[in-house]
């Protein structure tokens, strides 16, 4: 069995670690490229959302490299993601690929169910080994996310931005290859230390909160590396979504660490009082929360025609005027051009800077 999985930002580091510990032969899809998207667009329904097209491209590229099993997540709506695997399986079969699809359905807040699904997936592993595989992957994820948080602080402030990016990319590559827990910790610590040694600007950067649909926020290839672009414009980006938070809230039932979800739901209350699927409610809640924390602005990301984000976007108009926080929505599909996005980001940050200066002059 040669297993493959879809890419989503740095999640591949954890997923690959877990699958290897389950004693599976892993054939990762090649990094997402323009070609990946082109393949996906060619075979997917025209106005489906972009994550479907990219993951489709991932699967085709991986199957072409010899994978014969696909690992995919499921769900029970109302967001379209819950039916991704079904549609993809039909399309791939019609294309003539022979493969098996393993779909991890989100358990109804029962963690043991998840272990059992993982154990069934693995090659002759005990439930204890399945647990250990998950724990190891979780550990890797924690280290990676710590680095993500650090780079989002250092990058906008660093004088030599390229150097910061290189240190971070290098560390991620090394962590990905490492199978030993202690070594991973060492790599994390040394990366943090070298980032700390970089010379920083004295001026405080703008602070922008990033909200929206999880895939588009986390996958740099789906959002034209927006976090990096903003960092180069000297804007500190706070990401409202991390994979570990999402796993903790939705798969592990809030077992592993304290969940912020309840707070966000409370923040969203006056504007959006109901779960609308996907990340719609979190988008609104996080925006309100950023306003309370005096952030300079919020950028909402989503794939074009994303239903929950459209609801959130409609509501954000009101949040923006009542809470006094500038919001911009960017939708992505296969036609978006990098230069257009860059221009919009520059215009938005210029506007925020002017606003900040005007505010400072008033006092």
């Amino acid at each position, binding site marked *: 069995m040669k297993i493959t999985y879809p890419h989503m930002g740095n999640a591949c580091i954890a997923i690959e670690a877990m699958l290897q510990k389950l004693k599976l032969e892993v054939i990762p899809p090649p990094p997402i490229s323009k070609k990946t998207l082109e393949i996906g667009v060619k075979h997917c329904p025209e106005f489906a959302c972009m994550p479907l097209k990219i993951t489709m491209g991932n699967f085709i590229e991986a199957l072409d490299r010899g994978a014969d099993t696909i690992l995919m997540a499921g769900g029970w709506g*109302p967001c379209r993601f819950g039916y991704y695997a079904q549609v993809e399986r039909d399309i791939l079969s019609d294309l003539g690929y022979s493969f098996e699809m393993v779909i991890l359905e989100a358990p109804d807040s029962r963690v043991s169910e998840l272990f059992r699904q993982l154990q069934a997936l693995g090659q002759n592993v005990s439930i204890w080994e399945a647990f250990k595989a998950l724990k190891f992957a979780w550990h890797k994820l924690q280290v990676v996310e710590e680095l993500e948080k650090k780079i989002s602080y250092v990058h906008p402030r660093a004088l030599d931005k390229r150097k910061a990016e290189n240190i971070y990319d290098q560390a991620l590559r090394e962590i990905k290859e490492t199978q030993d827990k202690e070594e991973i910790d060492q790599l994390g610590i040394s990366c943090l230390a070298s980032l700390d040694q970089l010379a920083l600007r004295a001026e405080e950067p703008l602070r922008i909160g990033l909200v929206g649909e999880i895939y588009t926020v986390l996958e740099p290839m789906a959002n034209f590396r927006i976090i990096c672009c903003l960092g180069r414009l000297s804007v500190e980006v706070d990401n409202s979504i991390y994979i570990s938070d999402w796993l903790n809230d939705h798969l592990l039932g809030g077992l592993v660490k304290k969940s912020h979800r309840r707070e966000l739901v409370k923040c969203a209350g006056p504007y959006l009082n109901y779960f609308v699927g996907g990340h719609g409610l979190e988008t609104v809640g996080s925006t309100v929360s950023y306003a309370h924390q005096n952030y300079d602005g919020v950028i909402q990301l989503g794939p074009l025609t994303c239903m929950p984000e459209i609801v959130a976007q409609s509501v954000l*108009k009101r*949040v923006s005027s009542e809470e006094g926080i500038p919001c911009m929505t960017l939708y992505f599909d296969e036609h978006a051009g990098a230069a257009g996005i860059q221009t919009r980001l520059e215009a938005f940050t210029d506007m925020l800077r002017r606003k900040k200066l005007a505010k400072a002059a008033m006092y």
Partner: protein
Amino acid sequence: MKTVGMPRGLFYYYYYPWYKTFFNDLGARVILSSPTTRITIDQGINKAVDETCFPIKVYFGHVQELCQYDLDYLFVPRIVSIEARSYICPKFMGVPDMIRASFSSLPPLIDITIDLSRSQRSFKEELYKTGQLFSKSRRRIKAAEEHSSQELKYCQTIAAQGYTMAEAIDIWEGQELTSTWDSDLCIGVLGHGYSLYDQTISLDIIGRLRKMGCRVVLPEVLPGERVENEAATMPKRIFWTLGRKMVGSAFSMEKMPEIDGIIYVACFGCGPDSFIGEIIERKLKGKPYMMLVIDEHTGEGGLVTRLEAFCDMLRRRRRQKIEDNLPAYG
């Protein structure tokens, strides 16, 4: 007498008899917005965000129209789910919040949550709360609810005779419609009721097909149980109520020999339909199938041409079948 405004959009086409009977029985007057026109559409486009789907924009247009009247309440329910373990669409779940965020002066909203995905109880409670706005008597509210369900069933039996839901509602309201259509073709037409039965949104696809000599078969005509059974052949249960109904209807229609072809009408940007249309297209092997995607820019001419071409193709296919018993494509 208290007045309740009701937009003529979205689930109006499935539940209007229910809504109207309920409010009337409790002594309220229902004021319905006028049928969709270009003005409704333009007003809706102005108010809603660009990315929403066409039916939601039209709904906003209807709300805008109702805002001109002096209303005691505006009825914009949050329809989460109308059956167990299924949803309609995320946008339906956020409609009252989207409306609140987009309109500055609104009459008080009745935004009850209709969620039958887990149990009936919370829904009954919401209904009772709504009823209390008009009547203190719990018995009267309960009676109104029962009466409403009967009226809805009656209206559905009218639709089962081959009328569209919009026509069925007219008949239910006491209008007389003639139902003699000359036809030599029979076409199954699928789509969400709120886009299909709104003559302006769908550019009157059904009326046009009838004029072209087609008998139109709609999902409401098919027995619900058969539709469910056909939909259950999918490996994973489809968790959108309307999507499942459409897939089940398409599979049922494929097995009906009198149906010559199937047309699916979807609105651009409809999340569920981007998948449902694809699923039907892939599974439907035995019958000609056409998917029409419409939005606010649709030009009538293009649509008419496609309908005519589809009908011509079906007619030719049938002639050829009689002549040499071969399908046109093979």
